[in-house]
C-alpha cells in the first residue's frame, strides 16, 4: 500500500521526504536570556537539516500554550544566527503580544517546535563592495547574519543601528566583530529621524562610497532609502514583514503589492520574500 510511503516510525522526522527543504523540528533550548528590558535572545540546539540557511530567511515558531497566553498561529522570526559547527540556531526577538509573551516563558532544556528555513534570503551581489546596513529594533536581528556574511565575503559594511534610547541599542559589538563600522542613532539623542538620517546616509554615500542599501521593516526608512537610492543609482534589498498564517506559501495571507515587470503585483512575503529589491517595494 502506498500509504506506507509516509507512515513513518515515531522516531523519524514526520513524513520526511528525500526532497524536503523545509523541516518541522523540535529544538531543545540551550539558552534564553534578556538582552535588555524588551528583547530576548533564544538559542536552540538545531539539527543540520534546518541549518542550511541564509541571512534574511526566517523560521516559523510554534509558541507554547501557557496559563497567561494561548497563541494559535505560528510566529515568524528572522534568523539571528546559525552555526552548523555548533548546531545552533538563534533568534533575537521583542516581547510584544501573546506569541512572544508565551515564548518568553520558555526555559532552557524545554523544546520549541520550529518550521524552516523559509523564504528568500539576502543576495549580496559580488559588485556590491560597500554595503550600508540600516537597522532599527528587531531589524537588527534580521541584518546581523548579513553582517556576518559580509565578513565572510570580505566586505566591510557600514551599519547604522537605531533605537529609542542608548540602553536599547543592541548587537553593536556583534556588528563590530564582523568588521562593520557602526554608527548609532537614537530617538533620545534626536538623531534617528528621517531629517537626520537622510543627510547622514547621503554623507556616507559620498564619504564611504556606499553602493548598496539593506534594511528591514519600517516603511519610513524604506521610503528614505528608495529616494536616496534613486538619486544616486544605488540598489539594495529590504526584508519585509506581514501577518502570516502558513509561512510556506499556501495561504496567500501575507501578500503585499510590488512593482514588477512594469505593473503592480501581489507577492507573498513568506515565499517570494521576505527579502525584496529595494525599488520594487510599493
Amino acid at each position, binding site marked *: *500500500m502506498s500509504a506506507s510511503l509516509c*507512515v513513518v516510525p515515531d522516531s523519524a522526522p514526520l513524513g520526511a521526504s528525500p526532497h524536503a527543504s523545509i523541516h518541522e523540528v523540535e529544538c531543545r533550548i540551550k539558552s534564553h536570556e534578556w538582552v535588555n528590558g524588551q528583547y530576548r535572545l533564544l538559542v536552540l540546539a538545531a539539527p543540520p537539516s534546518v541549518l542550511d540557511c541564509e541571512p534574511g530567511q526566517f523560521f516559523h515558531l510554534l509558541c507554547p500554550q501557557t496559563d497567561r497566553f494561548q497563541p*494559535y498561529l505560528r510566529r515568524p522570526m528572522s534568523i539571528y544566527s546559525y552555526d552548523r559547527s555548533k548546531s545552533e540556531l538563534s533568534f533575537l526577538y521583542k516581547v510584544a503580544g501573546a506569541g512572544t509573551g508565551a515564548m518568553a516563558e520558555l526555559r532552557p532544556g524545554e523544546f520549541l517546535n520550529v518550521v524552516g528555513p523559509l523564504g528568500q534570503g539576502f543576495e549580496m551581489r559580488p559588485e556590491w563592495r560597500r554595503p550600508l546596513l540600516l537597522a532599527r529594533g528587531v531589524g537588527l536581528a534580521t541584518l546581523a547574519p548579513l553582517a556576518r556574511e559580509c565578513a565572510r565575503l570580505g566586505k566591510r559594511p557600514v551599519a547604522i543601528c537605531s533605537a529609542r534610547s542608548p540602553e536599547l541599542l543592541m548587537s553593536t559589538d556583534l556588528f563590530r566583530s564582523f568588521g562593520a563600522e557602526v554608527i548609532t542613532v537614537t530617538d533620545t539623542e534626536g538623531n534617528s529621524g528621517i531629517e537626520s538620517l537622510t543627510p547622514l546616509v547621503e554623507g556616507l554615500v559620498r564619504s564611504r562610497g556606499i553602493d548598496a542599501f539593506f534594511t528591514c521593516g519600517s516603511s519610513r526608512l524604506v521610503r528614505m532609502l528608495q529616494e536616496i537610492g534613486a538619486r544616486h543609482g544605488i540598489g539594495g534589498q529590504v526584508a519585509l514583514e506581514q501577518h502570516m498564517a*502558513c509561512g510556506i*506559501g499556501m495561504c496567500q495571507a501575507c*501578500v503585499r503589492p510590488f512593482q514588477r515587470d512594469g505593473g503592480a503585483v501581489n507577492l507573498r512575503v513568506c515565499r517570494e520574500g521576505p527579502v525584496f529589491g529595494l525599488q520594487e517595494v510599493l
Partner: protein
Amino acid sequence: MADLSTKIGALTLKNPIMPASGTFSEELAEVFDLECLGAHVTKTITRGKRAGNPVPRVCEINGAMLNSIGIPSKGARAFIDNVVPFYASYDVPLVISISANTADEFARFAEEVSVRGVAAIEINISCPNIEDDGKAFAMRPGATGDVIRKMRSATPLPLWAKLSPNTGEVVEVAQAAEAAGADALVTANTMLAMAIDSRTGRVRLGNIMGGLSGPALKPITLRMTYQCARAVSIPVIGCGGIATIDDVLEYLIAGARAVQVGTATFISPTTMPRLIRDLDKALEERGLSSVDALIGTVAVTGEALTLAEYA
C-alpha cells in the same frame, strides 16, 4: 497494517486524509512527500484573474483563526498550464476547487477545467450568487441544486459540493445537492465571523468579516457531517478543525468517508502524514482492519429526539 483506503463514489483514495482547499499548495512538497495523501485538493480558482481581499487577511482568535483571503486567482488558463501538470507526477487523485458567480458560469467553468489530470471537481458554493441578492449558493437548497444540475450536464467528472455552515438549512441543501447529481459532499467551509481589536477599535481583517476555521469550528462542522451523513446516501467528507487523530476518528465515527485538513497544516505542516500514521495505529488499537469498519459507527444514548431542543 489496516486497510486505510476509502471510496468516494467512483474514486478510490489510498487513505481518507486530504487537504482542504485554500490550505494546500505545491510548496508543501518541500515539507513532505505529497504522494502519501488520499487526494490533492487545490485552492479555489475563478475563471478570470482576481486579486483577493485587502490585508490583513488573517488573524488569530481564541485558538482558531479568521481569514478573508478571498479568492485571488491567476485564472483558469494559468492553472491548467502550470498547476495541473505539477500534480501529474503523483499517483494521487487531483481535486480542483472552482467558484463562479452564476450557475451558468459554474457550468462553463467546469467544462473548461475538465482536463486530463483532474480527478474531481470540488464546488465552492460558499461564494456569493450574484443572481440571488449576493447570498452564497450554499445558503439555499434551490440555488445549490441549480448550480449542481447545470454542472452535472457540463462535465463527466465527479462533483463534490462543499457546503457552508452559514446556512440554517444544511440538511435541505445537502439533499438538494444529492438530488442534483453531486457525487459527494464536503462539510464544511468556514463560518462567517469577525474580530475587533479592542485597543484600537479597528476591525482585524481588511475585509471586515472573515471565515472562522480551526478547532473552534469543529463542533459545528462535525454536527453538519453527522446530519448530512444521515440525510444523504452519497459520501460525506468531513472538514473543520481537524488537527489530531481523535478529530479524524470523530468525523469518521460521525459518518464521514474521508476528511480534509485545513488550518492545522498551518500550525504544523506535517499534520497530514502524522494523521495517516496515527490512523493506522488507532485502527489497530481498536482491532479494526479497515477504515470502513469505523465509518458511521456513532453510538447514541437514549432516544433521538425529533425536535432537537438544545437551548
